[in-house]
């Protein structure tokens, strides 16, 4: 039976299993743990990270990385905030489109340098991470956006309850994030040109030989990641209202962690955005649960989280290798039996 399930599905199942295990573990440690409030908290905080991790996944699939993504979120959140502060009459959809477009512009910069100037992405985005952040400081003049200046529709948007199931509230921000992730997932698995992302990451030489325009594919990945970070910036503004120059700081590494925990291969070629979403949920869940766990002091939280990331990735690597070996040996056995028959 096990050999019938594709490895990617198996990965997702394993992640869900770990998710349930973590839930069960903490429910024995923290009183009053499993309830609707836990879901509501995680769902509102994961909404932003899900979008960023989704974009990061697109980039990682092509054997690249985007370290500037946190700075993009911060800049877009601030720029969108100052735009709506000065012209409060802008309709919501136009404002969201502005955020997405602005994010995509940052992606164009990254994509150009990585795909066409052939500078390694880790260097390009390390540079643009600092550049975009400095641009934010300059642009903001070290002032902050505050909730008071924002229109009410914007501040209320993330917490609008669209529907509830039992005590689980489905709020607008979370629902939007989930819909985006699902849309990207369907695109990746069903729309033909999206296969090229996997092809380029899986075997760049073979991709080139198959007539795939690798440069364009990589460029596109960075622009999409920028656009998704732009949308995340919009959501960040709506959720927190108060935007300072440190907005989105550290999101780049958190998004890489979410993708990797979610089974996206850091060397490109395999992984899914659903995995990255579950990775983001898992990290958030563990992070939040550790706060409420008496046994672990505040100072050890990062360490526990770091160990969990290492553990999950190492376990994944080892298990997958075993699985592949096991399948190959099984197939050999099958082949032998066939010959005998």
């Amino acid at each position: 039976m096990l050999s019938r399930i594709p490895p990617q599905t198996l990965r997702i199942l394993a992640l869900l299993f770990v998710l349930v295990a973590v839930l069960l573990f903490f429910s024995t440690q923290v009183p009053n743990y499993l309830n609707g409030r836990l879901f509501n908290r995680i769902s509102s905080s994961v909404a932003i990270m899900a979008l960023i991790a989704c974009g990061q996944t697109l980039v990682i699939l092509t054997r690249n990385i985007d370290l500037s993504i946190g700075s993009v979120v911060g800049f877009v959140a601030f720029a969108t905030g100052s735009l709506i502060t000065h012209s409060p009459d802008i309709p919501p959809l136009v404002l969201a489109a502005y955020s997405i477009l602005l994010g995509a512009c940052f992606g164009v910069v990254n994509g150009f340098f990585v795909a066409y100037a052939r500078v390694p992405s880790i260097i390009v985005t390390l540079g643009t991470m600092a550049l975009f952040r400095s641009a934010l400081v300059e642009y903001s003049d070290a002032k902050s956006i505050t909730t008071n200046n924002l229109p009410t529709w914007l501040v209320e948007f993330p917490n609008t309850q669209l529907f509830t199931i039992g005590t689980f509230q489905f709020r607008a921000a979370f629902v939007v994030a989930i819909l985006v992730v699902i849309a990207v997932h369907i695109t990746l698995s069903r729309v033909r040109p999206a296969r090229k992302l996997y092809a380029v990451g899986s075997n760049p030489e073979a991709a080139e030989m198959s007539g795939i325009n690798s440069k364009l594919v990589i460029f596109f990945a960075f622009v999409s990641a920028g656009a998704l970070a732009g949308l995340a910036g919009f959501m960040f503004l709506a959720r927190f209202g108060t935007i300072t120059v440190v907005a989105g700081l550290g999101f780049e590494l958190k998004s890489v962690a979410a993708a990797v925990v979610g089974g996206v291969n850091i060397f490109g070629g395999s992984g899914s955005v659903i995995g990255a979403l579950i990775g983001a949920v898992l990290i958030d869940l563990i992070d939040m649960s550790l706060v409420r766990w008496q046994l672990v002091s505040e100072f050890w939280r990062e360490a526990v989280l770091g160990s969990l990331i290492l553990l999950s990735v190492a376990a994944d690597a080892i298990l997958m290798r075993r699985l592949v070996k096991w399948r190959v040996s099984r197939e050999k056995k099958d082949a032998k039996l066939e010959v005998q028959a």
Partner: protein
Amino acid sequence: MPQPILRLNSISKYFGMTKALSAMSITLNSGEVHAIVGENGAGKSTIIKIMTGIHQPTSGTIELDGKASIITGPQAAREAGIVAIYQEPMVFPDLDVAENIFISDNSDGLLMRPSEQRKRASALIKRIGIKLDPSRIASGLTLAEQQAVEIARALSQDVRVLIMDEPTASLSAHEAGQLRKIAQNLAGQGVAVVYISHRLEEIFEISDRVTVIRDGSHISTKPIAEVTSDGMITEMVGRGFSKYFEKAASTTRDEVILEVRNLTLEGVFENISFDLHRGEVLCMAGLVGARRTDVALALFGVMPPTSGVVKFKGQTTKFTTPRAAIEAGIAYVSEDRRKLGLAMPMAIKSNVSIVTLDDFLSPLGLLKGEKERKAARHFVDSLNIRTPDVETPVGMLSGGNQQKVMLAKWLNLNPDLFIFDEPTRGIDIGAKAEVHDLIRSVTAKGGSALLISSDLPEVLAMGDRILVMREGHQMSILKHSEATQESIMLHATGQRQETI
């Protein structure tokens, strides 16, 4: 009646001053398996690269379906239906079989229908004549299956000329048989198949016509029925070409320095047994895929063997790291200068001292710069390395001079056993002679040399004895007096085997 599909008319190709092909003419007919044979470096890969548009010919014309054409690049070649597959298959390891086959196929629109795609993949796989589940992920496939995927991809793009370059070199006998059947199936369906292989028995099994090339020139094209293996080999090595090096007198002494018995690395080579005497040059001859380098790496501790005994200077040894082998007195001069030989951006002096760095340290552990420079200058003079100074990065030197720097770093060690792996590949004839002199001076002083070379005149000029390998097996050890180019090739291609 076979239709000519692709015709090369008197194609020549120069790389700078180096001639790779001269006046090469080949005609490929539909429904025919056309074998091309020749020694390593005869120009086979250049022909493929010209057919697939990777290289443009310096002169000569190409005809496609009787019309003069220019194959502008790989994309144009693919559109014309010319596809090459190599020993290392070009697949996407993370995608499944069907996705691999249809990666650049847009015929059924923007949306993929995986089940539909798998059905189409199955049909293609059936046409090839093998069994393969189209939903399997490519990384789990065997090499032969991956090649089948590549062939299926070619079929999906209406291949008309399929070039197979040493496709069976890394396959097991059973898999190779499968692949040959595929080639014949396709020819039966009207594809022109170009088959390049070192396994002569394969060529007799599947090809309709054979073209022999040598030193970039066309020697003959004949129907397979008119060819014998001895005749083919004679044509491959050629007669009466300039003997550019004379064999020098042997300096072999009685003492055995290296004793190898039944050395085996599972799945790579097996039962390699030989003695190497002090002052002797033992050449290892063979074709691509003979696994000579693997034997060298096993002796040098890079890939520890699975079984067998190695006695070095009378002691049974088992090196598991290169460091251990170096300390015992073994030097390995790699065939791959760039990857395993030199630190290209570093200065000559730093490359020269790298193996024996401890000798260049002061008691405090600091590098003695002057001593390092002096050692480097010594080698620059004695080996005639052409460079402005010893501070020049090795990457700036010509191939021959780089090779000498690589030799210098090992000469510093003063090893008892030198393993030279293709030490003269790609360097000019003057530098070649200098490298040969150096090997002789090493053995004259009592060192021993294991010399891996694919250059038959070099093997005959240098080897006191010649060990011929073929696909991981030791075929024979020939004395210099009984070795000729023909006899070596007969063993290397598996047409003769001695019981040892």
